[in-house]
């Protein structure tokens, strides 16, 4: 949104395309009573930007052309400059019972509630890692959920260091205070993670580990996510250089591919502030307003330091590698259990022999999990970067933009 707005301000013809039904992507989801969201939605609404919602980009058939699939057709998008802001997704780690209905990501459950899922009076255990846990817990509580506990796998000392480092970020401190108020009375435990989820047809209780001891907590939902992984599939398809799992960009957010820019979580997991400033820089750079873009470098430096802080604080502890049992399903699309994966020494071998990663999620769930469990690296990306109808791949039903 930020990129589109700033580019449009420069009088350049710009379009924005997103799979979701309306603006805001995954986090702002069509409107959140949040200052930044309201401000940027207003700017976007008034800007001269062509909005293409409900369309999934899936392929680049030739240079400077993208194909996006909608509900009943596909559209061809011709561009001179491209800003990729594909965001991030939650990291899921397998543990016994994690496939039970009502075990969801933290952001996942929040998204479901935002989409109308009734949560009032329900008990929700929140677990995993990252600042998202607190945001989600506060949101759910505000909508009437009961939160028996929040389990953060990071250590108390990591969190203390994080807290101390926040002194450089007054915004974050006030956000933190607000969250603390909203979560008053909710037990928050560090050094804690889920060991198993239990239930028949759906979740009934969760066993958690807290500093070596176990606890069984009856609940209706488990909101569990282990921080975020960047969505680099489209940048990979476009040929962008990736380093350490993130898209490499220069000072102007340009990737290794000329006139393809990348902003937000795919370059580093840094939250809303970093995404907004990178988005603006990318938008301005795409419109060749380099002087204007430079003005935002300081703000970006600061936001990037926060990203590095997040990365350090919420690193996954090795204990989490012991969570899956032999029967625990790791690839949910193809139901491949942990024991079958342990027979193989590479992602490629495991994929060919067990089908892990060959399902519709295209490795988006099992990829980060196996990367953590086995240090496997996924192989290259092929179109479609997202499952689409056969007729869309066949080029049927095309309209041009």
């Amino acid at each position, binding site marked *: 949104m930020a990129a589109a707005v700033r580019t449009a301000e420069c009088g350049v013809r710009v379009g924005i395309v997103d799979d979701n039904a309306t603006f805001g992507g995954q986090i702002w989801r069509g409107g959140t009573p949040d200052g930044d969201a309201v401000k940027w939605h207003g700017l976007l609404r008034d800007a001269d930007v062509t909005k293409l919602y409900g369309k999934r980009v899936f*392929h680049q*058939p*030739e240079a400077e052309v993208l194909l996006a699939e909608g509900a009943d057709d596909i559209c061809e998008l011709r561009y001179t400059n491209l800003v990729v802001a594909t965001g991030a997704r939650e990291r899921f780690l397998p543990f016994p019972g994690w496939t039970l209905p009502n075990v969801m990501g933290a952001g996942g459950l929040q998204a479901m509630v935002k989409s109308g899922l009734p949560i009032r009076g329900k008990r929700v255990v929140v677990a995993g890692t990252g600042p998202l846990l607190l945001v989600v817990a506060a949101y759910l509580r505000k909508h009437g959920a009961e939160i028996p506990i929040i389990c953060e796998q990071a250590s108390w000392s990591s969190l203390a260091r994080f807290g101390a480092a926040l002194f450089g970020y007054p915004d974050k401190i006030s956000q933190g205070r607000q969250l603390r108020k909203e979560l008053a009375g909710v037990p928050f435990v560090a050094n804690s993670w889920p060991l198993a989820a239990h239930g028949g047809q759906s979740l009934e209780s969760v066993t958690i580990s807290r500093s070596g001891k176990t606890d069984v907590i009856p609940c209706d939902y488990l909101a569990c996510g282990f921080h975020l992984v960047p969505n680099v599939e489209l940048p990979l398809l476009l040929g962008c250089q990736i380093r350490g799992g993130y898209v490499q960009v220069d000072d102007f957010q340009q990737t290794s591919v000329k006139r393809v820019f990348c902003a937000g979580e795919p370059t580093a997991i840094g939250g809303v502030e970093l995404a907004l400033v990178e988005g603006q820089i990318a938008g301005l750079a795409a419109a060749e307003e380099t002087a204007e873009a430079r003005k935002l470098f300081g703000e970006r430096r600061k936001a990037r330091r926060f990203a590095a802080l997040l990365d350090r604080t919420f690193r996954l502890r090795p204990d989490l590698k012991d969570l899956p049992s032999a029967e625990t399903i790791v690839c949910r699309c193809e139901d491949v259990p942990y024991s079958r994966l342990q027979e193989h020494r*590479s992602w*490629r*071998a495991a994929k*060919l*022999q*067990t089908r892990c990663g*060959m*399902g*519709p999620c*295209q490795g988006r769930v099992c990829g980060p999990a196996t990367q953590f469990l086995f240090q496997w690296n996924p192989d290259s990306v*092929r*179109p*479609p970067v997202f*499952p*689409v*109808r*056969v*007729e*869309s*791949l*066949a*080029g*049927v039903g095309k309209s041009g933009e």
Partner: protein
Amino acid sequence: MSSTAYEVVIVGAGIVGAACADEFALRGMRVAVVDRDVVGSGATAAGMGHIVVMDDSEAQFALTRYSQRLWQALRPELPADVEYEQCGTIWVAADEEEMAEVQRKHGYYTRLGVPTTVLDSQALKRLEPNLRAGLAGGLLVPEDAVLYPPCAARFMMERAHKSGTQLVSGSVAEIGQGRVRMSEGIEIAGEIIVNAAGAWSSELTPGIEIKKRKGHLVITDRYPGFLRHQLVELGYLKSAHSVSSDSVAFNVQPRRTGQILIGSSRQYGAEQKDVDHDILRRMLQRAQEYMPGLGSMSAVRTWTGFRAATPDKLPLIGPCPGDTSLFLATGHEGLGITTSLATARILVDGITDAKAEIPIEPYLPSRGWKESVHA
């Protein structure tokens, strides 16, 4: 430079290399198989896993039929993840000209003892309701089958391993004269060296005419019951015959998972692994012409692979001229899975002086060998 000695060293752990290793090991020989990637990772990973009798020539028929019978015999020993399914093939005729070809094939196969049934337009629709209306009919070959090749290759390598076969990981720089020299310098000595490197065979043995013939495939999400047989349009033969141009043909396969595998395409001179958007579109449009219902299905993945093609469309199986230690088991084009077992038998029978079960002359590398091509 260290050196290890085997009776047989096979380059290539694809389905052909694995089948050969299995056969050599069965006869008590000490085998090493060398591959720079995982077992079954080349065309073996990319292909359709079709076990099919073909009648382009007597020699092709003999090899495919012999091998199909070997697969049938092996079937009870195959583990579940090999997903062997005798779903049969239907060669689909769009018009009367193709129906004439159906009759010809039916006559040919009947004479040679392969059970087939001619299907008229109604019978075809009954067997495969999702084919479009207005097709002329087809030929059902009920003994054809499909399987999942990477697991079949792994199964054969594991069996060979139980008899002592070693799998060596690494890139090969040079082969011949009784040894395989790896890129990092190590040499593996073998009385018998087998080039089973598929699309890369001519890099290791200059002088053999193997060209890469690129193919594309698409796999859908699960739609159980949509398709029962492997379906191939008779126009496929025109595509496989053409030596120079890019072509697509309607060819779909049901997986045991309920997913539909959609092919096929053939391109010469395309060396890049990238998915070619134009060919993919043509291929899928062709598929939709035959089965319109495919259009709204979810396509989950696309990929490419390289078949190893020879000028006369028959594989190279047997001793390589000019080097008494070197043997070839390559050039299988789109029939690698089908003919892997027969290839192994013929090769090993030849080396151990056992009597071959079919005439081997049509597959000998010495046919049309070019003496002059050595750097």
